[in-house]
């Protein structure tokens, strides 16, 4: 049987109006906002609508795939004891001093909370299907856990380890030198943790995520006041350096700028 119309659901982008209507329909069908509809179109490897595009370049108003950012100030993922662990750990990974902010001062714990509460925490872009035998070090991440699950399980396992090795204490209550000792033990895989958590796998993820929160655009909740960018001299989301290409050896004088602009550019109150 030949059927040219392949699907009642297929979106025909021959007409922009139809596309626009589709976006509105998606919104109306229960995905709360047009922003959610836009995500369905852009990052739609997983279940975005199939579309037939013909006759012109598709474009629709309101469909720009702007970054998700982070909002609010309360913690959504970490429980109080977990937050205490995270603050105590990232404070050692990037300590505060006069050279530049520490990870805590830069807002990294809040960044981590929002990441773990969002798509990354849920394992978006990870393959987590089984079976799950232990791999070689070269085969990389081989856990069934999503990042959010791994943080939860690892924090519990590390606190259990600390309680047995340091007389009933928790990681957050250890002196800085002892925290460093534990962190080095995780980094080198010398500490064996139970509960399906491999020490180094968790440490590597925590360190990577900490640097992400420290150096990413402040819209994601870390890098407060662009302090990490100021410390190294990175100007941020600048778009055009043409006039500086051949000015060899000169310091580029621009203060850093975020997607949200920078202090000195007045924020419009809504």
């Amino acid at each position, binding site marked *: 049987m030949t059927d040219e119309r392949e699907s009642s659901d297929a979106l025909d982008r021959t007409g922009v109006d139809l596309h626009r209507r589709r976006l509105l329909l998606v919104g109306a069908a229960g995905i709360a906002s047009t922003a959610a509809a836009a995500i369905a179109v852009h990052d739609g490897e997983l279940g975005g609508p199939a579309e037939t595009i013909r006759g012109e370049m598709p474009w629709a108003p309101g469909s720009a795939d702007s970054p998700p950012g982070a909002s609010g100030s309360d913690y959504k993922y970490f429980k109080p004891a977990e937050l205490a662990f995270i603050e105590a750990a990232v404070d050692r990974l990037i300590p505060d001093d006069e050279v530049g902010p520490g990870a805590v001062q830069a807002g990294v714990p809040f960044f981590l909370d929002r990441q773990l509460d969002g798509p990354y925490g849920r394992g978006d872009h990870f393959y987590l299907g089984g079976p799950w035998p232990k791999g070689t070090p070269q085969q990389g991440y081989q856990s069934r856990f999503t990042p959010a699950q791994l943080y939860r399980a690892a924090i519990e396992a590390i606190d259990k380890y600390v309680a047995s090795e340091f007389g009933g204490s928790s990681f957050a209550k250890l002196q800085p030198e002892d925290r460093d000792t534990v962190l080095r033990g995780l980094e080198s895989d010398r500490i064996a943790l139970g509960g399906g958590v491999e020490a180094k796998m968790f440490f590597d993820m925590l360190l990577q995520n900490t640097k992400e929160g420290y150096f990413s655009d402040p819209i994601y909740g870390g890098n407060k006041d662009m302090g990490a960018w100021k410390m190294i*001299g990175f100007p941020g989301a600048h778009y055009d350096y043409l006039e500086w290409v051949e000015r060899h050896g000169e310091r580029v004088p621009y203060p850093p700028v975020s997607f949200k602009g920078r202090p000195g550019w007045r924020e419009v109150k809504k």
Partner: protein
Amino acid sequence: MSKTLKPVDVVLVGFGWTGAIMGQQLCDAGLEVLALERGPWRDTPSDFATGFAQDELRYMWRHHLFQNLTYETLTIRNKVSEDALPMRRLGSFLLGTGVGSGGVHWNAQIWRFLPTDFLTKSHNEKRYGKRAVTAGDLTVQDWGITYEELEPYYNQFDLLCGTSGKAGNLQGKIQSGGNPFEGPRSMEYPTPPLKQTYGPTLFGEAAARLGRHPFPHPTGNLSRAYTNPLGAQLGACTYCGFCEKFGCGNYSKASPQTTVLPYLLRKQNFTLKTECQVLKVELTPDKKRATGVTYVNSAGEEFFQPAEIVILSAYVLHNVRLLLLSGIGVPYDPDTGDGVVGKNYAYQTMSSVNVFFDDKIINPFIGAGAHATVIDDFNGDNFDHGGLGFIGGAYIAGMITGGRPIEMIYTPQGTPNWGLQWKHAAAKNYLRSFNFSIHGSSMSTRGNYLSLDPTYRDVHGNPMLRMTFDFSENDLKMSDYLTDRASEVARAMNPREIKANRRSRPWNVTPYQTTHNTGGAIMGVSPKDSVVNKYLQVWDVPNVFSMGAGAFPQNAGYNPTATVAALAYHSAHEMLSRYLKQPGPLVQA
């Protein structure tokens, strides 16, 4: 039960660079062409506009434009004796998806392979003896095509992209300022080279003092505005430093979106369907002819799309998997050496050198995807390999693609990865350091290959691809030798210190290296040792054509895209001039 759709002349499986090129060529000849792309539609104003393109977290670390592994990944192992396990997170290579695919988030480093690169076996055997091309289980082959045959098609890609560069060899005459080692070009680059910042300039001066031959990296990050033969306009690159792994918001990077799509999508005989993944090429019972493809859309609906010609224009790994899933060609067996599909998987042997200054401000954030000064003195067979114990080579580039701080802070040898000492080293060195990229060849070996995994399946229930790979003795020797040559240039710059990051075994899937996977559907002169002929036509099923770097019998010390594109144009030319008049094998086996 799948619905059968109205037949088309040509179906394109995947819509990145080769899909766009083949679509344009075949639509211009009047054929009805349908492209099936598994990912979403993507374009500059909506998906990577300048207002939010410079987002290191989202694009690089959260993989926003890359293949989502949740539904499909591949399994990996270093050797046949190991169990392959799934690549659960992208790392060593960053696979594309969606319209434009890797053509959106590439660096636009545009290279031609050397004339001798196409003769890897015969040339090296003649100059260095039989052992040079067989020792350590090397299985290198000639390509069955020459540089001279491909040269007009390299030009065609340069004209499409508006490539910025300086020719080093025009019709056999060496030109100052270009690469004196390259094969003869019939024309100068369409636009002049990018200007160089401080780091690459210092690299070039030091290399010249050592008697090397520095030149600006050829690139599709355009040095000035350009209108291509399809009427698409590109703008001058602003050196924002967000190129590789990112889409360009400025229409300055050649991509299917900036060079082909505005033209192709307006053709009445072209249709693109997104969110449609091809599962299988369907064959006649005698397996000598393809009847079309079966695909499933994101709603889970399955269709049979009949077509006269099937073009596999997805990424290397997907093309090879589709051949295996469709039962096209005989799968390669590393024990016996029999079979061809999956054979000669190769990669790229990357190493680097970091240089640190006290007195020089490098400003590493001023960058572009191919903003570099390069030496090619030690690539391919540009130097005498006598007594060195390896074949192949690399280009060495003093390169600044950007200074994105999560990925690109270099710290001196011995610096810990965290703590105050790390922070102080980052603060001290960020503005005063940069990186040399040593971009080495990858010679194929008997044990490196692609096959179907016996255990893991994708969301459609089909076996995943299995990759068996490790670096060869030949390539590690090459990489060590080249890293030493790069270190010489680094020291000649009189820095405070340098750090050489050597390549070692075993290959590790976690740290990013490069997305230059090659082989598995290799080209050659005979169906006995290759999957496709010089026109990328599958020997066993002549109405199926397999595009891309899967055709490389081994990988040269250059970025692959221009060669991929030239092979596609070459294939299209033959399809239009001969195949359409008389469908059938273009080369008699």
